[in-house]
């Protein structure tokens, strides 16, 4: 295998002489971690996910839909817009189901392939990756950064550090702005920012989220995963011996040790690990995967890429560190055997629950009416007699037009022979609004029994796209 000079440089071994920087941080007195840049298959996947998630996050809030923002959680008007879907406070049920779906998808992914979420999609990982990249642009890779940090303050150091901090701050501010833009209409927010008319609370949240991003991705990094993330503490519960995790093949690698290239390691009584420490240097959480599975490992697969390059250089087969399962490792299974064990009770149960909840969600959405009606019965006034010997009951109906058009609705009452409305039969409502209408309903006292009689209101949109039936009781005095 021929390696370009650049690739060779990546796996060159950095002398370990540089003093490590110890800093007191929010959670621990920690040794600052200087992850070394890594290239390879999984690095490409990680960057693919960074680009995908961030295009989505930074872009989606600017997408228009029917003259409004396509995705907006308008907390002031208490309406959630998701493209064609508008959720009102009474639809909070749908949000709850969405959360349950996300949780079970996470369980499922974790059971099958470990911390995929952490390594490839979690905002913490994604922003750390981006911030690290900026750091690398200004300060260079691992070795250069260590040297810069341990050296005295100089003009060059000031410029490099200053440039990094400034770029970080700009990115963090944009992230904070985007975040707030999902809760207040982003075009208005943009105008307010530029005209310095931002309200005090909006400014507060904007700064808060910007600072949060800056600190988490710039300084806290692996500490967020180690000390702040609840998922990191609970994910072990979803693991079993058939879960794919990133593993070092101890049997193949140990005993470790350096050797001359081209020598058969077995002849020296050594395994395949050359003990170059590259897997430790690339690890963003600073652990040694060769010590076994640890909760600090976020499953980013950087060590796989790194070790594969070493193996390639040594002309050994790749995969000394690889995705594997506890069972596969102890029983020397191949990929086919591993895949066969993906289907197991735990996975089936997660999939079963997930498919039930998803179908319930879809069913709810598809049958969701754009018209909602509630009968508010006036307790004070019961039935009273009006002209012609009829009994009149007064009902108040709260009618809500959840659709995005102006609507006319025809109202009918049913349930007793000859029952009819004495007031308007057609009501109108602007898009996304609700109003209380009063209806006088009359019926012959002979048509029902004294006391309560079940009736129902039938309300139908004249556009024909929505209808509602609402039960009520008609009271006939003795």
């Amino acid at each position: 295998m021929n390696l370009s000079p650049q690739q060779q440089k990546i796996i060159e071994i950095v002398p370990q002489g540089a003093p490590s920087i110890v800093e007191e941080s929010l959670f621990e007195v920690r040794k600052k971690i200087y992850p070394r840049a890594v290239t390879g298959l999984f690095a490409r996947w990680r960057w693919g996910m960074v680009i995908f998630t961030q295009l989505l996050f930074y872009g989606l809030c600017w997408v228009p839909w029917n003259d409004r923002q396509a995705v907006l959680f308008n907390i002031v008007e208490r309406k959630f817009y998701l493209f064609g879907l508008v959720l009102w406070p009474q639809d909070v049920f749908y949000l709850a189901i969405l959360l349950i779906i996300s949780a079970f998808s996470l369980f499922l992914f974790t059971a099958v392939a470990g911390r995929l979420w952490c390594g490839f999609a979690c905002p913490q990982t994604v922003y750390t990756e981006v911030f690290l990249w900026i750091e690398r642009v200004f300060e260079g890779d691992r070795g250069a950064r260590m040297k810069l940090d341990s050296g005295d303050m100089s003009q060059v150091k000031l410029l490099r550090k200053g440039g990094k901090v400034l770029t970080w701050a700009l990115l963090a501010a944009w992230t904070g702005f985007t975040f707030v833009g999902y809760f207040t209409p982003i075009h208005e927010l943009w105008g307010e920012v530029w005209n310095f008319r931002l309200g005090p609370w909006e400014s507060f949240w904007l700064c808060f989220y910007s600072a949060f991003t800056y600190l988490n991705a710039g300084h806290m990094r692996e500490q967020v995963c180690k000390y702040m993330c609840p998922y990191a503490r609970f994910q072990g519960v979803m693991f079993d011996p058939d879960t794919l995790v990133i593993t070092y093949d101890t049997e193949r690698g140990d005993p470790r040790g350096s050797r001359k290239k081209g020598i058969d390691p077995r002849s020296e009584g050594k395994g395949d690990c050359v003990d170059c420490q590259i897997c430790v240097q690339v690890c963003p959480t600073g652990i040694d995967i060769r010590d076994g599975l640890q909760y600090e490992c976020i499953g980013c697969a950087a060590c796989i890429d790194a070790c594969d390059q070493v193996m390639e250089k040594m002309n050994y087969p790749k995969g000394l560190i690889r995705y594997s399962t506890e069972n596969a490792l102890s029983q020397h299974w191949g990929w086919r055997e591993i895949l066969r064990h993906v289907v197991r009770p735990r996975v089936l149960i997660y999939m079963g629950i997930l498919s039930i909840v998803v179908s319930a969600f879809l069913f709810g959405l598809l049958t969701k009416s754009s018209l909602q009606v509630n009968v508010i019965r006036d307790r004070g006034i019961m039935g009273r007699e009006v002209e012609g010997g009829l009994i009149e009951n007064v009902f108040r109906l709260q009618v809500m037009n959840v659709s995005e058009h102006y609507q006319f609705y025809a109202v009918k009452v049913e349930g007793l022979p000859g029952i009819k409305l004495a007031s308007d039969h057609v009501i109108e409502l602007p898009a996304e609004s609700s109003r209380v209408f009063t209806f006088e309903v009359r019926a012959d006292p002979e048509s029902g029994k004294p006391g309560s009689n079940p009736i129902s209101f039938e309300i139908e949109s004249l556009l024909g796209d929505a209808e509602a039936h609402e039960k009520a009781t008609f009271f006939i005095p003795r």
Partner: protein
Amino acid sequence: MQKWMWILWPSFIIAGVAEGIFFSLVNPQELYFLGDPVHYSAIATYSIGFLAFWMVCACSSFLTWSLQRPAGEVNARG
């Protein structure tokens, strides 16, 4: 500093959850404070609500933190 993170961070998460549940069920414009309708803007009510939740949760975290300190540490510092 580390002590404050242990107190402020878990309470932040739970305050976020409580805020989400509370305000998706309750409209801030329909709240009463000491008998008067709340007249702040919605975003101010949400924010104050969140900070209040955070404070309450932080008190609980603080208690947890104080009660789980080992005896030796408590004796040493009185």
